[in-house]
């Protein structure tokens, strides 16, 4: 399930928040904070949703979202007015990556080599993904309840889970996903193809009566 029992907790620099409050006395800061609030707070549910899927833990997700908003406010001056949602997502992703790096030098949040190829040498000419794909099950998909599907999505390996959540649930375009994740659009496409293939297989393999 999404809520894993073990709680490591995110060790986050809360101090940064206190410093920022102290430094935010002036009108300029007030103005910045207001603009930030108006621009960023409407996306809180989206950011939280992504955090839940990336971290698969309620408390970790909350901590990561709070840290994400702290960092976003700090760097709001560098935000150049393009889509703020992808910008927040990219920050959240960094928060998650940093936290995983801190916890252990071994486990990486998203292992770029997971795709089985490096991202840099890709180009649009050669087929993006050559692994022969098993044809998807021809049987009909049974309707499953949202809880089941959340779990199936949560069980996908990192890069594929991330791709499908950003596309299907957060409704980002390929270009935006590529920017958030920092990979070429071609990689986004091949990860999505793979993610859907895995998800469909898991979905049809899911036992229990269809609802």
């Amino acid at each position, binding site marked *: 399930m999404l809520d894993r029992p073990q709680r490591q907790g995110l060790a986050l620099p809360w101090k940064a*928040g206190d410093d*920022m*409050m102290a430094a*935010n*006395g002036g009108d300029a*800061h*007030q103005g910045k*904070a*207001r603009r930030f*609030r*108006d*621009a960023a*707070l*409407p996306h*809180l*549910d*989206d*950011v*939280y*949703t992504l955090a*839940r899927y990336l971290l698969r833990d309620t408390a970790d997700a*909350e901590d990561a*979202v*709070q840290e994400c*908003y*702290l960092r976003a*406010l700090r760097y709001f001056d560098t935000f150049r*007015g393009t*889509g*703020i*949602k*992808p910008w927040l997502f990219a920050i959240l992703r960094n928060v998650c990556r940093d936290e995983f790096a801190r916890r252990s030098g071994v486990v990486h949040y998203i292992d770029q080599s997971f795709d089985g190829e490096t991202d840099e040498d890709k180009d649009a000419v050669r*087929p993006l*993904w*050559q692994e022969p*794909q098993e*044809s*998807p099950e*021809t049987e*009909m*998909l049974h*309707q*499953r309840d*949202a809880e089941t*599907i959340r779990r199936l*999505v949560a069980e996908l390996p990192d890069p594929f889970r991330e791709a499908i959540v950003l596309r*299907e*649930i957060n*409704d980002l*375009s*390929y270009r*935006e996903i590529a920017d958030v994740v920092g990979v070429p659009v071609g990689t986004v*496409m*091949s990860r*999505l*193809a793979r993610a*859907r293939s895995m*998800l*469909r297989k898991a*979905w049809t393999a899911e036992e229990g009566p269809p609802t």
Partner: protein
Amino acid sequence: MTCNEAEILLHALLDGELDAGHAHQVEAHVENCLRCAPQLRAYRELQQAMPVAQLHFTAPASLRQRIEKTLPASPRVSNRRSVLKGFVMGTALSTAMAAGLVIAVFRTDQDQRLLGEITSAHVRSLQANHLTDVQTSDQHTVKPWFNGKVDIAPPVVDLTAKGFTLLGGRLDYIDGQAVASIVYRRRTHVINLFVTQGGSSESHEARLQTMQGYNIRRWTAQGLQFFAVSDINGEELQEFVDKFEAAFQPASGT
């Protein structure tokens, strides 16, 4: 097109990421391919079966409060009241200054109310299965349809080739006035472009405002006021405005 290419590109097709030319190529391949056709069907089925709305999480109120607390207090809601209070109490503000402020604040309120109405009209158009009164992607059908229904001739341009599909037109009422709405689609998102008589003949560049999570871009051109409302991100909405303006300007001289 080979199956290897189609296997990837059919996902881009499902996601509405292909331009018309490539979409046609993929569809043409899939139609005649025993291997790719079931795949497209299967993934379309998967996409439709995803209960997307229920896969969202809502941030707990406690988290929202924690984040609010880290932001410096900004009493933007009570602006008008505090200005009026200042006026009555005759504090440091001079009478003239306070009067100026009150007018400015009332204007802002008026603006907010208008944006609220625009947003409501957009939401209504999505709820009531009444998105368009005249449903066609032909701009030459949509434009004359507005004749006699509104007191302006709204510019209707077809931006399908530029990634924004013209769905049709609709008559709406905003601020007690009949208003033309031209409806476009971007991927799965609807854009309502409301056109009313402009207050001035000056042109104003589009600026972005947000209301109830919807993005609104508002600009004035050639005596008309435009409000583009959608749930797509601000950047894409600006792209829409730019493309609309680019298509509208050359035609306006004739």
